[in-house]
Every structure is written in C-alpha cells, then in structure tokens.
C-alpha cells in the first residue's frame, strides 16, 4: 500500500493530474512550463545582473550604447571606490551586529513565546494571540515618535539596543510573523513527546529547550534567515535611531555614498571617476552578503518550507 502510494506520487508529482495525458501533451506542457519559469526567473534575476554588469563598466563603457551587457574591460576600480567610499568593512560590521544579534534573539524569543501559544491551554490564550496578530498590523510610523522618545530617555540613541532589546522580548521587525510561523509548526508536533518529558520530571523550560526546540529546526532555519535578511535590508529604523556615521549600517552608508565620494575625490581632482557604475558596485556589495548566505542555505531553506507547514 505504502509502496503504491509512493509510486503514484512519483508519477504524478504534487498536482497529480498529468498521468492520463498523451506523451506529446506531456512534452508540450513540460516545455511550456520551462519557458514560463525561465521568463519569470529572468525577471527576478535581471536587476542583479544589470547591477553587476554596470558595476564593472568604465565611464566610456557607460556612455557607449554598443556595450550592453559585457563591459570591454572589467573595471574593478569601481569596487575599490565603493568600498572606501562606504567605509565598507566598518558598516558591514555594524550591519552584522544588528542583523545577527536581532536574528538570534528573535528566533529564540519568538519560538519560546510561540510554544506557549501553540501547545498550552490557558485562559485568555485566543485573545492574546489576536493581540499578537494585531501587532503585525501596526505600521512602524505610527509609534515611531513615542519609541524614539522612549529610547532617547533610556540613552539608547546611536546604539544597537533599539534593535536588540525588542527582539529579546519577541517583538522587533515582524516579530509577530515569526511567532505565527513557530506556532503553526509546533501545533503539528505530537503531544506524546512533551507528556513523556513531563512525566520524567522536566520543567517547563527544559520541555521547551531540550524537547521542542531541537525538533523545530526547519522553522528555526526559516525564521532565522528571514530575520537576518530583513534586518540587513532594513532602512527605516536605522535612519531613526542612528546618527553617528560610524554606527551606520550598509543601507545607510549607501544612501550617503555619493556625497561621501564627492567629498573624498574633490581633493584629488578626479571627479569623473565617480559615476553610476560606482553606485552599482556599492549596491551590489550591499546585497551580496545576504545573497551568499542564501546560496549556501537555500537547500535547507526550501526543504524547511516544505516541512514547516507554514500554513494550515
């Protein structure tokens, strides 16, 4: 029985509708699928390719209409300029602290809270969970001024704590969404595991930490990666909480890049070195770290999505 189901699954795929067709219909459908998917993927890849190709162009290549995709010479000087103009390593360090720190804190805190919502019946649970969803709806701009005042009074301006402390409480950038993901995941796990652990004398914390969290690896991967890249790309909140340019994250550095470079190059009389290609090089440098992380983790990521039961 199990074997035959497996065979059917193999033959039909997830949609289970293709088997009764003639072979040429199948071939035709397959080709159409590939054409559509390649087109869609091209739309998604285009900006990245465009960015990379432009970033290697010289001034002459930029103006030359015959140079469309591949520059005549790979002009790496653009990258040197971008790195020095953005103070890349310093800004990258700031970005890493914020996104890695908030990512870890959010993953732990949200899974902890979500476990309570998912598995334990207590009075008021449904109303409180509605509150969680409610926090997801609040646009950050509505509460930014009181938060700004709060953080200023606490002395958190120009530090990373406005990002880290809310994450510690399971809030922060889209914390509610992460709680939701973890809750859906925990809800599908068997109850026997916890029961056994409790009978063996595990307290509430060890049930979570030693039984449930290790089981939640797919959800952890999804949430951690999301949290990481969303904090990395975040632009709005850093503009509010960070003033000192030494504390700027990469997106903030990118936004002041042209001014910084013009100032830097003014003394050297090399103003025309600064152009769109440098901006593109800088942009590419900003999105590169998340892209690389994604390239390495995408296999787990895609698998996790299948197994998280993100929906239900």
């Amino acid at each position: 029985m199990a074997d035959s189901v497996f065979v059917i699954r193999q033959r039909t795929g997830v949609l289970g509708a293709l088997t009764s067709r003639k072979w040429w219909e199948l071939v035709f459908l397959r080709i159409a699928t590939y054409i559509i998917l390649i087109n869609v993927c091209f739309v998604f890849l285009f900006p990245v390719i465009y960015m990379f190709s432009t970033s290697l162009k010289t001034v002459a290549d930029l103006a030359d209409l015959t140079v469309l995709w591949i520059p005549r010479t790979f002009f790496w000087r653009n990258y040197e300029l971008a790195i020095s103009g953005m103070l890349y390593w310093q800004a990258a360090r700031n970005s890493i602290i914020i996104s890695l720190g908030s990512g870890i804190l959010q993953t732990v805190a949200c899974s902890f809270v979500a476990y309570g919502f998912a598995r334990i019946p207590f009075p008021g649970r449904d109303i409180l969970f509605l509150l969680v969803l409610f926090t997801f709806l609040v646009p950050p701009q509505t509460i930014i001024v009181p938060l700004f005042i709060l953080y200023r009074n606490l002395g958190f301006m120009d530090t990373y704590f406005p990002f880290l402390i809310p994450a510690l409480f399971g809030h922060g950038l889209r914390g509610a969404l992460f709680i939701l993901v973890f809750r859906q995941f925990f809800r599908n796990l068997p109850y026997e595991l916890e029961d056994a652990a409790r009978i063996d004398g595990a307290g509430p914390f060890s049930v979570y930490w030693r039984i449930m969290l290790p089981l939640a690896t797919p959800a952890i991967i999804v949430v951690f990666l999301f949290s990481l890249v969303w904090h990395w790309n975040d632009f709005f909140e850093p503009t509010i909480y960070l003033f000192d340019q030494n504390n700027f994250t990469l997106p903030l550095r990118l936004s002041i890049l042209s001014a910084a470079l013009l100032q830097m190059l003014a003394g050297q009389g090399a103003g025309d070195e600064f152009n769109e290609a440098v901006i593109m090089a800088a942009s590419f440098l900003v999105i590169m770290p998340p892209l690389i992380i994604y390239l390495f983790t995408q296999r787990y990521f895609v698998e996790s999505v299948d197994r998280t039961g993100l929906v239900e």
Partner: protein
Amino acid sequence: MQFEDNFFWVAVLTGLAFVVPACILSIRVILSAVGVRLTYKFQRAMDGYFYISTWIVGFLIFLAWPLFQSLYVSFHNVKITSSELKLTFIGWENYAEPFLEDIHFLPLFTKTVANLLSDLPIILVFSLFVSILVVQEMPGRGIFRMLLFMPVVIGSAIVIRRLFGEGVSTEAIGVSVQTLSEVVFTYLQGTIADWVLDLVNRVTLVLWRTGVQILIFVAGLHSVPITMREAAKTDGASGWQIFWRITLPMLSPVILVNVVYTIVDSFTDPFNEVLTYIQTVGLTRDFRLGYAAALGWMYFASIFLFMALALLISSRFVFYAGER
C-alpha cells in the same frame, strides 16, 4: 558606542525579559512548597503564562505604551521647544485636517488603496500560478525554486527599490513603454490608459513582492493530500476539474493567509507613499508631531478595517478540511 550612560537600562530591560517568567515559575514552586494543592489546570495555565509573559511585557513597553502615547499626542498640538515638548489640547482638529485643509494626504491614501486593490489579484494569481508550476517534479526544480524565493532575500533592499525607481523594471519585461503608451492611448480613455500604463510600469515591482507569497503557496500545495486527488481522478475528473474542485478549495486557507500578508505588507511597507508622507510631516519637514500621530492613527484604523473586511468576505469562501 558608549556603554556608560545606558548600561543601567540595558541591564534592567534584559533582566526584565528573564525575571518576569522566572517569577511566574517560582509562584508555582512556592505555592506547592507551602503545601497548597494545585489543580492540573492551574499548573498548565501557569506554564502558559510562563512562556508568553516575556512577550506581554514587551507588548506593554514597545507597543501598547507607544500606541497610547501617540493616541494622546494626536489630540494635541505639539510645540517643540529647546528643552521639552509643549502640548496643548485641541480635540479632534488633527483628525479633521486631512479632510478640510490638507490637500496631499487623501489623494496619496486613495492612490495607495487603489494600487493595493489592483496589485492584490495580480500578486495572488501570479504566485499561485508559479508555485503550481514549481511544485511539479522535474529536472531543475531546485534551481527554479531558489531563484523564485530570491526576492524574499533581497527584495526589501533599498538597492532594489532604487533600481526600479530608475526604470530598470520595465526594461526587464521587454515592454517598450513608449510604443505601448501610444497603443493604449489610442484605444482607451485617458484615466483608464493612465491606470494601465501605471500598472505596466509597476508590474515587475509587483512581481518582486511575490517571494513570500510563492513560498507560502508552495508549502500549502505540499499539504494538500494526494489521496483526494487520486480519488477524484479515479472517478474520472480531469486535471482542470481537480484543480477547481479539490486543490483550490483545499488551498483556500492559504489564499487567505496570502491575502492578509499582502495587505499588511503593502500597508506597512516603509516606502509606501502614505507612510513616507506621515514621516515627512512628523519628523522632517515641519515637526507636526500631533498631526502626524493623527494621520498615523487614521491610517492604522483603515488597515484594520481592510483586514476585517478581508476576513469577513473570506469567511464565506474559505474551506477548512478539518472542520465538521
């Protein structure tokens, strides 16, 4: 970064995140040590509060209190002096202003809503379509999936937004807007033509916002039980019928999730024109904090209404397989 000034508060807040759950845990320990017999139900309830207490504390500090403050401020006129904020009570004036005086807010708001309404079907249909293609077993599926989820990773980046701002997006679909606009204007009336052109201009940007939705649909498609489709097939249903009668109804909760996500995502997107405007009014241009707070609250209320509407409408169409 200096630590001296803020170390105290960092310690207090971090401590709070741990102390509050610890207190709840210790209540149980103390009660049972004293000899009070605790019912199982009470113990479980305490466990539940143990887990979520951190979140509740955070909710009060980082959400409820700021929300209350901004509600309070929205009824006041705020003057910023060198040392403090001066509040004078003006009642509902801030709430009346966008309808009576402000010429910018309402057009921006209606435009945002109109964009959302036109984008929502595109996003949903497109992401459902693509995810159906990509859940099939075929060579190269992994690569396609990787590329399709990529907007999740870099789509929110300011970099990408800026690229689209420069018109790279329309190049990508290979539509020459120039010729298109001529065609469109010949056959359609002015306002409709504007709308169509605007849509074409935004299409790639819209597609770039489908990463999470595709992901949710893929996960959802995997959770539709294969046995049902097999049963339908045995009864002689065609692929088309299976899709409309089995897959789509089974998928309807997921569609609802995607509708909700799309609405929230586009309403709270920091590059959203309404939000940028609120920010300009409140934080940069003329520091009218009271007015900005009132705008923020009205905007928030309208999101809430939209959500309620979406849930209300959807409750008629969503089918939960587990329910009897």
